[in-house]
């Protein structure tokens, strides 16, 4: 299969790669760039574990090809912490016990970071609605909702 050259900016760094056109963005991030914090749970866009930010908007990286990200900017969970300090949303998840096995967590964090940028003071129903786009089998969601609320109250950037 012929390869296509792509260039993406991920977490602030430039990356070039020659990829098969069919290579999923999730596989590109995980296996080509070694950014394994982005997880894959269902491979068809339902569970949300693979969510990353594409030009600031949450997308399901298992539903995109790497070539579709060519020339664009990506943020993954590895890009949230700054200088080793967890992002306020990450801290809120820890403080509210919003994760257990942690597998679905990176995707949820990416959605929530984008959500709180758009909606810094969300209602409980808005929080529930946005989290309902993700599957979590461990937490029963209650503490995830608490974590989002906590992050909003603390005024996450």
């Amino acid at each position, binding site marked *: 299969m012929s390869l296509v050259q792509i260039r993406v900016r991920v977490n602030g760094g430039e990356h070039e790669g020659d990829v098969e056109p069919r290579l999923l963005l999730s596989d590109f991030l995980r296996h080509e760039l070694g950014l394994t*914090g982005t997880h894959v749970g269902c491979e068809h866009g339902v569970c949300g574990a693979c969510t990353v930010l594409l030009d600031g908007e949450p997308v399901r990286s298992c539903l995109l090809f790497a070539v579709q990200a060519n020339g664009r900017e990506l943020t993954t969970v590895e890009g949230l912490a700054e200088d080793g300090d*967890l992002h306020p949303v990450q801290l809120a998840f820890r403080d509210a016990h919003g994760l257990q096995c942690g597998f*679905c967590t990176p995707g949820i964090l990416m959605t929530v970071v984008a959500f709180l940028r758009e909606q810094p003071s969300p209602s409980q129903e808005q929080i529930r609605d946005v989290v309902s786009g993700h599957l979590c089998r461990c937490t029963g969601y209650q503490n995830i909702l608490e974590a989002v609320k906590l992050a909003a109250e603390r005024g996450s950037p």
Partner: protein
Amino acid sequence: MSERWFGAPVVRNEDPRLLAGQALFVDDVQLPGLLHAAFVRSDLAHGRIRSLDLSAARAHPGVVGVYSAEDLGDLCIAGPVLVPPPPIERLEFHARTPLPLARDRVRHVGEAIAVIVAESRYTAEDAAEAVQLDLEPLDPAVALEAALAPDAPLVHEDLASNLAAHVIQEKGDYRAAREAADRVIRRRFRYDRGVSGALENRGIVAWWDPHDGRLSVWDTTQAPIPVRNALAATFGLSESQVRVIAPFIGGGFGPKIMFYGEEIILPWISLQLGRPVKWIEDRYESFFATTQEREQIHDAELAVAADGTILGVHDEFLHDTGAYDPYGLTVPINSQCTLLGPYRVPSYYSEFRVVFTNKPIVTPVRGAGRQHGVFVIERLLDAAAGELGIDRVEIRRRNYLDPEDFPHDHQILFQDSAPLTYDSGNYAPALERAADLIGYEAFPAEQQKARDDGRHLGLGIVSYVEGTGIGPYEGARVTVEPSGTVSVVTGVGTQGQGHFTVFAQVVADQLGVDPAHVRVVTGDTMEFHWGTGTFASRGAVVAGSACHAAAQAVREKIFRLASHLLEVSEDDLELAHGRVTVKGAPDHGFDLSELAARANPLRGAVRPGTEPGLEATSYFGPDRGSTASGVHALVLEVDPETALAKILRYVVVHDCGVVINPTIVEGQIHGGVALGIGNAFYEQLHFDESGQLSNASFMDYLLPTATEVPPIVAEHIETPSPLNPLGVKGVGEAGAIPVAAAFAQAIEDALAPWGIEVLEIPLSPQRLFDLLERASGESPTEGKPGETEEVTP
């Protein structure tokens, strides 16, 4: 006095790595020269392999190896039964375990037939398409009851029928109880199949390094040490040559305790090729290749006195084990034992038949059959309460075992082969508290008011017990390092339960350190190589107690050494904030880091009988499991038009003995309840008559989301277990166990004008709609009895 960490809502030690995307999961393992495997699986539920032509797949560019059962040779044998049945008299059990790759016959959709190894997963899947497989369809045995019919197709042609096991356990004289009863309530209950739904699918990376003479296997297993033992035995290696690592695992929930064919095949491939190889199950595969949860049909009977006192229970049930029974009888025995609940049941006759069908294999999934027992007894009590005009809370209270009844011997055997004996319990306070929290007293008025507004509210309140924390044993090694860091190493694997934190809390209390400074390692056989695994809600109980014992032993070493060095009596020393000091003279003593260095001198004499370092390894094995308990209560609203149920409030009052970390325990409860809600209302595997699964994706199989799971109020009651030094009981499965029973009761309550009776789980909107349609056709009446037989002697 040192700060006490046990019982404190400590934030989790493992979270920073997980939140930053730095935690290692199996699919994150990257090795030089890594190959990738994909499996070719059966499309049919039952078939004979006429021919298998792998030549085109082998010729595919990028393919390194293609293997079938024939290539595996002597390795392609059926494995042992992982959990042999308990020594129950007259027990009949036919062990049939799967081959790593099917040789001439396939018995369920998704059974593995061949494996392709290639330079990339994409290439491996391409080549899998090129495999020429000719399967001759055979009639499948699909439906549970029909599979036992005399003319049913045989899943295993060497057996006379599809009966996999037949077990009777009884106590007392049920026949006499029935004679003496004022009422006999008889019902038929069904519980259908679901998946565990861990967000991380299974995966294995195997690497035979010939230079090192070591086989390393990263595996999404709940039981790394048994896997290590099995691999060493299979490949004729020393156990010290095999390293199994269960790193962070994205949810276990039971099926990852199984030992699967892939766990043999991947290491074997690496041994063949001398290169590391990875296989990650995809979601579609997981719906067939990962074990599932249990389908059962119960014909149950409750003999009661007019005042609601239970005189006896008679239950005969069928349990669908799928195509094989590699996990023995754990699930149906859990159902059999848990049916007795928190109640005094003087006579019990329980008989079950395990049935082979051409469906994926059934092994424990969170709750592991306990929910079936709870569903049956709770539903029978609800029916009895209705028949006898007794309040549903009252009928439970009247039948509870009293605090002075413990230990209570139920006179039958539990899944761990030990007698089913409850260690401790205090049930009535949980019931009263749950009734208060859910607003039981005021509910009739609330319900009436809602009905006046055309809304249908219902309340459910049920009890459960959970046998937890079974043996045989776990171990732990605790070390105070010269850096001052305390290291705790244990053999159990971890799948999100918070082991890195609760074990740290247990140890921190003994050593007077902050749990944030305790580094816990789990699930790596090179770090600790004795143990059995994470199952049966046993991590905190068994491994936690081992951590406690090891920490106590280190504490003793600290005092002994400090006493020697400071020339004071041990009684005059105290240990807190990382220092051992003379009481009343806080400057006179040692930091633990310094003491650790002193305990491992480079020169000089070490006293005879002294071990170097501040380190100890200890083990803990309970005689039997400890019995946790609790009450769930909920209020829901049903829309009779759409047949949708919305939970308005949910209360859990539970007793898992002494609580190590309330935040973590509540998290376990929340997650369990969410899984239970899925089981009760949304999740069902739909097999058609040919054994094909029609909803094998997260698009079609409905896991609850944040909009389906209500806020859950959880409270703890602490009745210590006398069976371990911490007084703890397990809690991992508790949340999931009674949800269906509570849900069913609440639905009936909400729809009382229709007089429907809920006898099946899951009660999907479709099933509820059908029940409503049927009831409407018969004109709604108040308190109309259900359609099942009812015996009134």
